[in-house]
């Protein structure tokens, strides 16, 4: 065994970013699973819709709080992109802190708007099939919003408390990736529930 040719890896770095990192694949796979989950919910929505003569039964929910929530979420993306960029090339801790706080704060406001959105729903989940699918779809997205928003709070705490290690820069970028995912599905869920596109 010892006479064999050797590949010396001691000079290799202990970090990698993007698709080279194992953690990136973990998060990407998680997002793929959750995308499938949303796709199933959307398919369920259209299946139920095809079986009902009147859709939505008893009218659509009010669009106000939902629009506020979506607008806030879209507004939180540019600061998150700045965090993403800072964690990659420039690595200014001060700017990462600032933009992550901005994005996190807007995200928390969006969560409040989502709570109002639930309060405004004129039906319960057990009133009819439409009520069930709306509550479940909005609820699953709200869980992602809570999880990702909580992750933002965690990273703000980390950036202030420290020690910030290089691997946390990868975590920050994956956190940003998760946030983009949550906002992207917010757009789709909004379009499904409030615009109710018929042609599919």
């Amino acid at each position, binding site marked *: 065994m010892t006479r064999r040719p050797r590949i010396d890896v*001691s000079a290799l770095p*202990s970090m990698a970013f993007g698709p*080279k990192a194992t953690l990136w694949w973990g998060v990407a796979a998680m997002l793929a699973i959750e995308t499938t989950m949303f796709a199933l919910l959307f398919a369920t929505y259209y299946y139920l819709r095809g079986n009902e003569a009147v859709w939505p039964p008893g009218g659509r929910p009010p669009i106000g709080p939902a629009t506020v929530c979506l607008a806030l979420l879209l507004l939180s993306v540019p600061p998150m992109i700045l965090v993403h960029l800072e964690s990659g090339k420039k690595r200014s801790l001060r700017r990462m802190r600032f933009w992550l706080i901005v994005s996190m704060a807007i995200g928390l406001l969006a969560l409040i708007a989502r709570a109002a959105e639930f309060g405004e729903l004129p039906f319960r989940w057990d009133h009819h099939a439409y009520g069930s699918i709306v509550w479940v779809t909005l609820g699953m997205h709200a869980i992602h919003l809570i999880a990702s928003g909580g992750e933002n709070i965690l990273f703000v705490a980390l950036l202030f408390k420290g020690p910030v*290690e290089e691997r946390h820069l990868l975590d920050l970028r994956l956190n940003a990736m998760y946030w983009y995912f949550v906002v992207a599905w917010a757009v789709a869920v909004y379009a499904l529930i409030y615009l109710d596109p018929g042609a599919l």
Partner: protein
Amino acid sequence: MRLQLARPGNHVLDPDLYNQVFTVHGSTMMFLFGVPVMEAVAIYMVPLMIGTRNTAFPRLNAYSYWVYPTGGLLLYLINAVTSRRHGALAGDDPWGGDGLEWATSSPPPDYNFQHLPTVRGRSPLWEQGDDQPVVVGLRSDRREILVTRLIDAEPDHRDVLPDKAWTPLATAIATGVTFIGVIFTPWALPAGMILATIALVGWFWPKRDRPREWLEEQP
């Protein structure tokens, strides 16, 4: 088997006995659990489902039950007796296997391989010559694994795995408590999520006593 596998380098069972117990365990689960449990469920459920007092041949059924434990015990006894009297002892690689799991000793040492082996195909032990390289330079004072590139499998970086921690156990307990709790109240779900989150954050949070190697790379 669980005791043997609980830690690397255990000697609860020697390699030969381990192989025997493993094989008998497999046969037991297949033929003495997997098949009979289906029949047991059928014998219990089918009369209930079709509204009779018993199956068509109750005596034959009872007979088959007594054949089953007798045959099962015989399987164990015959195996124990014959392998004590006959056959060569199994070594590290009794069947000339092709995979790397046969390249180490049995039971494997704590570190598995002194140097990380490389492969050039699906049957490394059959294909490689004396010039098959080994990987050196991984640190032994922390948990490191070598990550290779996706397309060409060239070494790319050394990923550092987490140290020993009690927090994954806490997460597992929180999850278990949650699943038991939701039997009684749906509020166990948010409560359990909070508990699991606390444990996970505890795992994630950087430790103060960690070697300050990465701190120099701070922004």
